[in-house]
């Protein structure tokens, strides 16, 4: 069986907050194996565009369409195909890392050995039974990445993935992204040129519409 081919197409996306037009007429199309960085200054709408693309927020104009092997994916099924790392996606602070993973994947929880291997790589193994409330911001970022990627999603959305990470943490993430990039669609909002450089295409948001 061949690998699944995903396609995400954004058509004429526009968003405004009151009188301020954040962005408009955004078009792009990505298929499995392609990656795109959304860059721009603070407040230019990078995270908003990422959320709209992931269908976690609604645009004022346009639409985002998802296909898997040429078949449309409905919004309700979409979340089982995507992984997301974002400051807005926060695991339960009262639960441990393992409990958060078991909750997130439930009946599809990967084998214990696989989880432990991934935790080892991300430097979280010795902290697996600690409540997330006791994690540092860097550890929390690694946990978010672990949860977003553990289910091997076909589409990965990353919002400032390197934020709060030390050099080792960033290296782990960049190595991982280079490994999985040929098999997924990668869409990233970032201000870091090293992160944007991991993607083959980019959109710059920054035009003043006011």
């Amino acid at each position, binding site marked *: 069986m061949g690998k699944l081919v995903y396609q995400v197409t954004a058509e004429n996306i526009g968003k405004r907050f009151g009188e301020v037009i954040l962005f408009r007429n955004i078009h792009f199309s990505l298929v499995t194996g392609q990656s795109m960085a959304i860059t721009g200054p603070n407040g230019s709408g990078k995270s908003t565009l990422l959320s709209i693309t992931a269908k976690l927020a609604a645009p004022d104009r346009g639409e985002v369409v998802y296909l898997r092997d040429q078949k449309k994916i409905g919004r*309700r099924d979409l979340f089982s195909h*995507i992984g997301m790392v974002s400051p*807005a*996606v926060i695991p*339960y*602070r*009262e*639960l441990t890392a393992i409990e958060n993973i078991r*909750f997130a994947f439930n*009946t599809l929880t990967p084998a214990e050995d696989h989880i432990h291997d991934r935790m080892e790589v991300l430097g979280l193994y010795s902290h697996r039974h600690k409540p997330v409330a006791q994690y540092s911001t860097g550890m929390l970022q690694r946990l978010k990445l672990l949860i977003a990627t553990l289910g091997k999603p076909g589409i990965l959305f990353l919002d400032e993935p390197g934020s709060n990470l030390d050099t080792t943490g960033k290296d782990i993430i960049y190595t991982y992204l280079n490994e999985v990039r040929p098999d997924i669609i990668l869409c990233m909002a970032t201000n870091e040129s090293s992160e944007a450089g991991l993607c083959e295409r980019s959109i710059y948001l920054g035009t003043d519409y006011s």
Partner: protein
Amino acid sequence: MKQDCVKGASILVQTILSSIGKDFRVEFRGRYAINVSVAFAFITTLSISFATGGTAIRPAIQAIFLWVILFFSAMNSLSHVFTREEEESTALFLRLHSSADTVFLSKLLYNMAVFMFLEILIVPLCVFFFSITVIQPLQFSITMLAGGIAITSATTIIAAIVSQSGGRGSLFTILSFPVTLPVLWVTINATTRSITSGLIFSWNSVLFLAAFSIALLMVSYLLFPIIWDEG
């Protein structure tokens, strides 16, 4: 085909149980909402008991006190199941990893369990401090159960709506009161009959509570994905 249905139902049940387990773990490791509810119930019951100071209270008033204490004690815990997700910014994590059906059913069952837990604590307390004599224990127990289910059926969807707004806790009680007023009216009446000697218990009250719960659950189940997905 039948096997697929059984497998699908089994996965749904497992997912719901996992979600309820998560809510209980999160709640009982913090215990904020439950503690506030229990403290409210104790303080109110003791205050009324001291205020009445041994005066004989009529069964109708006993039933009113019992349900008013139960209702307002539960308000904080019942809304917390959704508002906590927004306040602690875990709503998006939940949305990414659970379907709307699972979220609604698990939160509903969690709220029912919390209400039953509060009833188990509050009812004996009220029976003791207000000197309630339960004349028809079966009818009394069924009224408590049916009333609890009706209140949680009505308030779970309101909690979901309120969690999307800024007002949160106070707004929840204000919005819930008119919706649950018919339930309180009927449960107080039925409770009065089960604790008053010489009055005949009307099973129509239980039938009304069951019909009210089913109707609200059906509407809530259909509407919840719109509230949850568009939130």
